[in-house]
């Protein structure tokens, strides 16, 4: 890129320097001119500046330095001992150094600007990363909340379904009971529960604990009603009139209660909810003095929802099924 003129000048300078050195020894006496220190320094400074970023970043300043160096070189060529040449070389050296420094300023200024842009970009990146992190966490939390909501909704729905089912079951239980009331005596008794009373004469032959064929039809209806009474405990209580020995009546009442229990269980009433109890002559509902009263006392009561009934008889309640009365001595039953 250097002009031919410049190259030639440099060559000449080099030649000048070389010849200066060669001739120095012999020519000192002749007054031959060595290149002054200032000019050597100026050339060095210019070469350094030219190799620095100033060449591309501060070409005008470098050009000015070149011009200053040329002036010094010209002055030296005109008069190799002139003081002016040294002064101009001194100035040229400073100008070259200044051009290099200005190049350094340009370079550092660009670096600074780039660093400032990078700084902003890095800050943006940090902000983006933070925002991304927060967004992820937020999404996760939102999903958790959504899941929680759905679970809550499912729970509510299940609860509603269960509640509807319970209401329906209660409704069916009530309906079954009221249907039963059409064919049997059904009463609500405080502390005991719902009491279904079946006449003994309808269920059993005198002194027997085997169910009569007609009894089964009636008990079928009872079983249907009881199957709907979910979660309710059921107690089958057998009663006799006062005719005959107490212990015999007691045994007979228990056998009859068990017969009813076994039949109901065979008709689908859960066995674990049903217990049979013999009450004998106890708790008459009418006077045993009249035949009508005795007939009313001979009965089987089915208590639904009964709790804490006679513990004294509880041992005998879950007697093996299929047990039938052997005694036929209750002639008056």
């Amino acid at each position: 890129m250097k002009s031919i003129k410049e190259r030639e000048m440099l060559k000449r300078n080099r030649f000048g320097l070389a010849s200066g050195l060669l001739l120095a020894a012999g020519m000192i006496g002749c007054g031959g001119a060595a290149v002054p220190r200032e000019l050597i320094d100026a050339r060095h400074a210019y070469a350094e500046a030219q190799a620095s970023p100033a060449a591309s970043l501060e070409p005008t300043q470098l050009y000015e330095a070149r011009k200053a160096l040329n002036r010094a070189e010209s002055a030296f060529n005109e008069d190799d001992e002139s003081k002016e040449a040294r002064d101009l070389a001194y100035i040229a050296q400073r100008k070259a150094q200044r051009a290099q420094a200005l190049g350094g300023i340009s370079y550092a200024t660009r670096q600074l600007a780039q660093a400032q842009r990078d700084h902003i970009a890095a800050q943006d990146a940090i902000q983006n990363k933070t925002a991304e992190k927060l967004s992820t966490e937020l999404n996760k939390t939102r999903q958790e909340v959504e899941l929680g909501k759905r679970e809550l909704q499912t729970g509510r729905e299940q609860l509603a379904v269960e509640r509807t089912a319970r209401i329906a079951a209660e409704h069916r239980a009530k309906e079954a009971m009221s249907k039963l009331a059409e064919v049997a005596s059904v009463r609500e008794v405080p502390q005991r529960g719902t009491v279904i009373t079946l006449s003994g004469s309808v269920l059993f032959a005198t002194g027997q604990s085997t169910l009569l064929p007609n009894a089964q039809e009636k008990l079928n209806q009872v079983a249907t009603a009881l199957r709907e009474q979910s979660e309710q405990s059921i107690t089958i209580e057998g009663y006799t009139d006062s005719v005959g020995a107490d212990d015999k009546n007691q045994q007979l009442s228990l056998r009859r209660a068990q017969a009813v229990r076994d039949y109901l269980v065979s008709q689908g009433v859960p066995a674990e909810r049903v217990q049979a109890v013999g009450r004998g002559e106890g708790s008459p509902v009418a006077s045993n003095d009249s035949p009508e009263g005795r007939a009313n006392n001979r009965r089987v009561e089915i208590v639904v929802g009964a709790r804490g009934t006679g513990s004294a008889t509880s041992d005998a309640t879950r007697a093996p099924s299929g047990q039938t009365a052997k005694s036929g001595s209750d002639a008056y039953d």
Partner: protein
Amino acid sequence: MHKTKAVPISFALLALAAVGCGGAAVPHDQLVSSQASIRAAEEVGANSNPTAQLHLRFARDQVAKARTLIADDENEEAKLVLQRAQADADLAIAITKEASVRAQAEQALSQVAALRQQIQQR
């Protein structure tokens, strides 16, 4: 009023006389220019940078030398010495500014490096 007018006139007469004597004119402009550069160098803080301080010192010394030369009517040489002084003062300014901008750039670069490290650690 008469006195104030009289001063520049007498200067002009002296200058004419000096030129007439074969000497060069007093390098006023170069003197003003060199001194302005020295002040500028002082203002940018050349005294706090050793290299810049040295060149500032050269500049001041050369201005003083130029004044002596002017007093001795060596105006031609004074002008060159003043040019040298200016070259030193201007160089002092450039060196000072370069050091300052370089320091700023280095600081900014290290800050960016620290931020980038932060990003990688996140």
